[in-house]
């Protein structure tokens, strides 16, 4: 059995891609946030992931779990707002799961990918106290984790599990459009929040798509 596993090289490639994407999509995320929040989601994520990328450039950890821990602490200490603690906690928990998969299988196997997403989701729920349907980033992560678990159980390899998760996250983000927000600043809009995609769900879908692309491109 020589199933492909995703190691630290993948993790670093993913996070570097996150920095490029949040920089490229900064204005688009700000625009989404301006519609139902205060218009700085892209700005905040760009600041956080630029700081992460700089740290990875200068001293990338050798272990999968350590890389995610660095990502988590850097996001928490640079992003601010609600997104900082939320993404920070998600990456912290995801990193712990990834570290365990690393010890068990020498990297992320298919089950490891599902566990990473489930752990990240659990972190978001614990920190933000949001549930699926509240029109938050949980809607993207919940869809991704569910799809990843199903794909892993049906025997997909980790690249295919990420592809399924990424597609589900995108659908989950799209599904926030008609929802009425119940958490975060968008909840102040009540009914008027319907018709706008949640910026946190959208950024989550973008970041998870980057993970899938990095999985596909990592040898």
């Amino acid at each position: 059995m020589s199933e492909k596993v995703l190691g630290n090289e993948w993790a670093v490639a993913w996070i570097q891609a996150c920095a490029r994407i949040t920089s490229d999509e900064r204005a688009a995320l700000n625009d989404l946030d301006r519609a139902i929040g205060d218009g700085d989601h892209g700005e905040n994520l760009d600041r956080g992931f630029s700081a992460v990328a700089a740290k990875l450039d200068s001293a990338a950890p050798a272990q999968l779990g350590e890389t995610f821990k660095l990502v988590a602490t850097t996001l928490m200490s640079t992003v601010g707002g609600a997104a900082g603690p939320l993404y920070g906690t998600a990456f912290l928990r995801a990193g712990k799961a990834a570290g365990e998969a690393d010890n068990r299988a020498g990297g992320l196997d298919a089950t490891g990918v599902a566990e990473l997403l489930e752990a990240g989701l659990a972190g978001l729920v614990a920190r933000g106290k949001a549930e699926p349907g509240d029109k938050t980033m949980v809607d993207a992560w919940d869809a991704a984790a569910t799809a990843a678990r199903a794909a892993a159980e049906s025997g997909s390899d980790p690249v295919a599990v990420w592809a399924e998760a990424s597609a589900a996250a995108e659908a989950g983000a799209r599904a926030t459009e008609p929802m009425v927000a119940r958490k975060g600043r968008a909840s102040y809009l009540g009914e008027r929040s319907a018709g706008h995609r949640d910026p946190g769900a959208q950024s989550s879908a973008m970041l998870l798509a980057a993970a899938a692309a990095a999985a596909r491109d990592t040898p």
Partner: protein
Amino acid sequence: MKKLINDPHDVVKEAVAGFVAAHSDLVAAGPDPEELFVHRRGGAVPGKVGLVSGGGSGHEPLHVGFVGEGMLDAAVPGAVFTSPTPGPILAATKAADGGAGVLHIVKNYTGDVLNFETAAELADAEDIDVAAVIINDDVAVQDSLYTAGRRGVAGTVLVEKIAGASAERRDDLATVAAVATKVNERTRSMGVALHACTVPHAGELSFELAEDEIEIGIGIHGEPGRERIPMAGADDITDRLLDAVTTDLGLSGGEEVLLFVNGMGATPLSELYIVYGRAAERLAAAGVKVTRSLVGNYTTALDMQGCSVTVLHLDEELTTLWDAPAKTPAMRSET
């Protein structure tokens, strides 16, 4: 957009540097520019409960303007309209701790609450007693399962002044926290926007209002409120704000109150006084005694045009603490 700035990313850093330079008799900046906070000149007062507030910048003079004797020991300015991260909040908490514990005064926004909670956990790990009061005076938002709860807005200033006086007379942490909670529970606010603000790094209006439209119940970051209505006269607008506040506060006559008209940044004082005059007249007609007042730009939203009306239901203790001396860059009172 025309703004008196250099690089949009340096706005907070440069504004705080200028603020500290201008008020160096009262305040100083923390030692690490990466963990930016402002503290009282001279640092923590031994044996006194420390008061730490903070949140996104752009609401000046909130919060750094209220650092000084009788009010805050430290304030943490986050990026514009973005809560600070746990690091600087922890640094400010340590700097404010005179051995009697620290009270965090936090406005009810998801980001502020999460980051202050995290900082409090870190402070606890360093054996600093931390209590927190979450300010939620904005009646524009229904406090229900379906929202993040009422927002904290201009009432924050009143909590900082009154809890500050409680700490200054050497009340213990539980007492200062109870005083802060009491002020919050007896304070209600509601705002109106006539024109949106422009966040420096975004460079465009945070929302659009038609020339003849105003938004009632606006938040201090331009979050939408209850409704958009056609532009009306100052008396009509004041009545809408005041009625929402007094109804929620349950004022029926005979109470003593502090009436506070707060400017959002780009509304002239003359207009704020027109609003104050109307609100005071209405309260008097309802048999409510306005015994203390505050009018001016205290909790702003950059260059937003508009104002908020805040009513604090006073009692003897709160009146005494409101009257206690304070010496800060943005609020001074003497006995």
